[in-house]
C-alpha cells in the first residue's frame, strides 16, 4: 500500500516539483511555510488536482501517470483526508458524516451507521453521534473528521494542517490522540503542516518544502538538529527534550528536571524556544525555578542574534543579542548560567 509520488504541477508563478515515498504504517510530515506548495501536493495526491507531469502510485495501483494518460479522480481513490477546518457536512449528523464514505462506496445504511458509531467510540465522541457538526467544539469536530477519514480503511491518509484550527490546549490533547491513531493505522500517512511541533510529534520522517521543492528530508530529530536552510533553522529552532511528566515538573530522560506551568503525566516532550532562554555569567538572583549551570558548546550567528548551543545538565539552545554575547565574554567551553521561565516551556504528550 506504500505511496510513491513524483509530480510536477504549476500553480501560478510557482512550480511545485516534489517526490516523496511513504512506506506502509509510516507517517511523513511535509513541513514548510505558507505558499510553499504543500497543499498543492496534497490536492494532487487526493486526485483533486491533476498533475502536469509525473506519477502517483499506491501499492500496486497507479493513481496518476501523465505519460500513460492515467488519472484516477478523487472519488476513485481509496483514501481518507482530514482538512484544516474539518469540513464536516453541516446538514448531516456526525454519524451520517462519518458514514458518508461508506455509503458512497455501496455499504448499506444500517451497516454504515454501525461502523460510523464504532469509529466515533474509538475517537472518544460516541455520545455526540446524533449532533450536527455546528454544535461541536473544534476538537470534537476534528476527531469526527478523523473518524470520517479512517472509517473506510483507506490505503492513504492525508492530513492537511489537522491541528492548526484548534486552540493551544485542545491541540495538545488532539495531537496526542492523533499520534495514537496514526500508530494503529496500517496505511501510509502524509501530514502537511507549518508547525514543526506537529511534525516532530507525529511524523516518522519529515520533508521540508520551500517554494515547491524539497530542501531537506530526514527524521524529525535529524532535521531539527542539523537544519540546512535558515528557514528550517528558525522553524525547528527549539530544543525538544523527552522526559516523564510528574505534575508540574518533568524528569528528563537525559537527566535533570524542568519546571513547567502545566501539569503533565507519563511520557512527554518538553520544548524550549531559544529566545526564551536567558544567560547569566553568575547564578541569577531571585528564585527562578529553572536555573542550570551549563557550558557553551558552540555559537553561530543567526539573523540579528547569536545562537548558542549549551550542554550540561540540560542541553539547550539559546538566542542572545550580539551585545549580550560579547558582554558575557562567551567562548566555547565557557561556563554559563541559563534560566527559563516555567510558563515559557511547552510540554506535550509523546
Amino acid at each position, binding site marked *: 500500500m506504500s505511496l510513491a509520488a513524483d509530480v510536477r504541477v504549476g500553480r501560478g508563478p510557482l512550480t511545485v516539483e516534489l517526490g516523496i515515498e511513504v512506506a506502509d504504517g509510516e507517517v511523513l510530515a511535509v513541513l514548510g511555510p505558507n505558499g510553499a506548495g504543500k497543499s498543492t501536493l496534497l*490536492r494532487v495526491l*487526493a*486526485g*483533486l488536482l491533476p498533475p502536469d507531469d509525473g506519477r502517483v502510485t499506491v501499492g500496486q495501483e497507479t493513481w496518476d501517470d501523465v505519460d500513460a494518460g492515467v488519472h484516477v*479522480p*478523487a*472519488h*476513485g*481513490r481509496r*483514501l*481518507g*483526508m482530514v*482538512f484544516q477546518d474539518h*469540513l464536516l*457536512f*453541516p*446538514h*448531516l449528523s456526525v454519524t451520517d458524516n462519518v458514514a*458518508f*464514505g461508506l455509503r*458512497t*462506496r455501496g455499504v448499506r445504511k444500517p451497516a454504515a451507521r454501525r461502523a460510523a458509531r464504532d469509529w466515533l467510540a474509538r475517537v472518544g465522541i460516541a455520545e455526540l453521534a446524533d449532533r450536527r457538526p455546528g454544535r461541536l467544539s473544534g476538537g470534537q469536530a476534528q476527531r469526527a473528521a478523523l473518524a*470520517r*477519514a479512517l472509517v*473506510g480503511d483507506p490505503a492513504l491518509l*492525508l492530513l492537511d494542517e489537522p491541528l492548526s484550527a484548534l486552540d493551544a490546549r485542545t491541540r495538545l490533547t488532539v495531537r496526542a490522540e492523533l499520534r495514537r491513531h496514526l500508530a494503529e493505522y496500517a496505511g501510509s500517512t502524509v501530514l502537511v503542516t507549518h508547525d514543526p511541533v506537529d511534525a516532530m510529534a507525529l511524523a516518522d520522517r519529515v520533508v521540508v518544502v520551500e517554494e515547491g521543492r524539497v530542501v531537506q528530508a530526514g527524521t524529525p530529530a535529524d532535521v531539527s538538529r542539523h537544519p540546512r536552510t535558515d528557514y528550517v533553522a528558525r522553524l525547528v529552532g527549539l530544543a525538544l527534550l523527552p522526559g516523564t511528566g510528574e505534575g508540574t515538573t518533568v524528569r528528563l530522560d537525559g537527566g535533570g528536571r524542568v519546571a513547567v506551568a502545566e501539569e503533565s503525566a507519563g511520557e512527554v516532550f518538553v520544548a524550549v524556544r531559544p529566545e526564551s532562554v536567558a544567560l547569566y555569567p553568575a547564578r541569577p538572583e531571585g528564585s527562578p525555578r529553572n536555573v542550570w549551570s551549563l557550558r557553551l558548546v558552540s555559537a553561530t550567528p543567526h539573523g540579528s542574534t547569536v545562537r548558542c548551543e549549551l550542554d550540561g545538565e540540560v542541553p539547550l539552545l539559546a538566542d542572545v543579542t550580539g551585545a549580550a554575547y560579547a558582554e558575557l565574554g562567551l567562548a566555547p567551553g565557557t561556563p554559563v548560567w541559563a534560566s527559563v521561565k516555567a510558563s515559557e516551556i511547552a510540554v506535550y504528550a509523546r
Partner: protein
Amino acid sequence: MRRRRREPGVPVPLLVPAVLAVAFLLLPLAGLVVRAPWGELGPQLTSPAVGQALRLSLVSATAATGLSLVLGVPLAWVLARSTARGRSVLRALVTVPLVLPPVVGGVALFLVLGRQGILGSWLDGTFGVTIPFTTTAVVIAETFVAMPFLVISVEGALRAADARFEDAAATLGADRWTTFRRVTLPLVAPGIAAGAVLCWARALGEFGATITFAGNFPGTTQTMPLAVYLALQQDPEAAIVLSLVLLVVSVATLLLLRDRWLSRAVR
C-alpha cells in the same frame, strides 16, 4: 460587530426624497385598500370568474416554478461550477429575459412555438400539438420570464457555498452527481427556496408574455393579472377586488421570504 453611525439622524436632503419614495411606493397600495368595495367583497370573491382566474394563476405559476427548478438548478450549477469557456456569455444570454420587455418575450415565443414557428410547425406537423393559446402556453410564457430569477438566485447561492465541501465529498468516494445530490443541493437549499419563491411571485404577476403568447381566454389562459386588466375596462370594482387578492398573495410571499429564507440566503 456592526459599526455605529457617527451621527444620529438623517440629513434633510436625503430624508425628504426618502419619505417621498416611501409615499410613492405605498400610496397606490393604500388607495387600493381604501377604495376596495368591502361590502361586496364576499360575493365578488366567491364569483366563479375570480375563482377560475385565481386557480389558473396558482396552478400555472406553480407549474412554471416546478419547470424552472428542474431546468434552472442544473443551469445554475453549470454557470457556477463549470470551467468551460463562454460561460460569461452564457450567463449574459440567460439573463436577457430579466431585462427584456415581457411582450417581446411573448412575441419571440410565438415566433418559435406558434403554428408557423420553427419548432411549432414541427410539433404541429409531427404530433398535432399546438401550444399557443393553451394553458401550456401560459406555463411556458411564465417560465420564460421567471426562470432567470431562480437561476441567478441559485447561482449566487452556489458561489457563496464553500466548494471545498465538494472536495471533501470527492475524497469520500462521491462522484460529481452524488456530490451534487447529497452535499451541494442540501447546502444551497435555502438559496433554492428563496429563488423558487421569487420565481413563483414573478410568474404569478406575469402579464405581457402571457397575453401575447397565450391570449386571454377565461378558464384556459386568463390568469389573475389578465383578469384584472380586463375587469378594469368593464367592472372596475371587480378589478379592485382581484388586485386586492394579488396584493395579499404578494405580501404573504414577501413575509414568507423574509422570515424563512431571505435573511439566510441573501447575506
